[in-house]
């Protein structure tokens, strides 16, 4: 199951909430304001590292670029909208609004 997160972790509890329901192996895709979570070296970097122990983490590249985020946490994979579609091809989707 693909989990998408579209909220800034600083403003909203969505990342922390979603994190409790992830099963090992479930991919997590950050989109929209959610991508601030994977900016390298912010307060949430250790949480992202923890998630990555059991779950692949993706971030939507156009959303990163729009926000001027060039450096993302290690191990985070950048995908474009086509990559988003490919993740949806492979998984049912759980959009944590």
């Amino acid at each position, binding site marked *: *199951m693909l989990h998408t997160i579209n909220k800034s972790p600083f403003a909203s*509890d969505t990342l922390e*909430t979603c994190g*409790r*329901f*992830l*099963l090992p192996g*479930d991919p997590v895709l950050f989109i929209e304001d959610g991508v601030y979570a994977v900016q390298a070296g912010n307060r949430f970097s250790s949480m992202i590292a923890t998630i990555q122990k059991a779950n692949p983490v993706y971030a939507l590249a156009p959303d990163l670029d729009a926000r001027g985020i060039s450096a993302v946490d290690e191990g985070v994979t950048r995908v474009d909208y086509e990559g988003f579609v490919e993740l949806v091809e492979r998984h*049912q*989707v*759980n*959009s*944590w*609004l």
Partner: protein
Amino acid sequence: MGNTDIEENTDIKKIMHVMRHAPHGTIYSYEGLEMILIMAAYEQDLSVVFIGDGIYALKKNQDTHGIGIKGFSKTFMALDGYDVEKLYVDQFSLEERGLTQDDLVVPVEVLSSAELGGLMKEQDVIIHH
């Protein structure tokens, strides 16, 4: 059993509604409930999960008279009559708010986050409200 039956059988989808917003401050919980009531008529495998502030929609003794907005907590009691019987509450969210099952207007099953994660994994469709 013919192919038609099998076909019909696979047409039954597991659809989960995840209530995440507090009532009244925004409409998501209310319009989410409206959606659940309509979907209930379609004989799918529906479940409703209350996570985070979504739990507050079930709080007893809501009196919305003063804010001039229609209350709807009692409508959750009607879900049973629509054969929507799978109501789950996230234990962590409940405890964090200092609430217990006794504070809620309907009987629910309280599950751990891991158990709810497992249920989510089984779904064909998940809609957050």
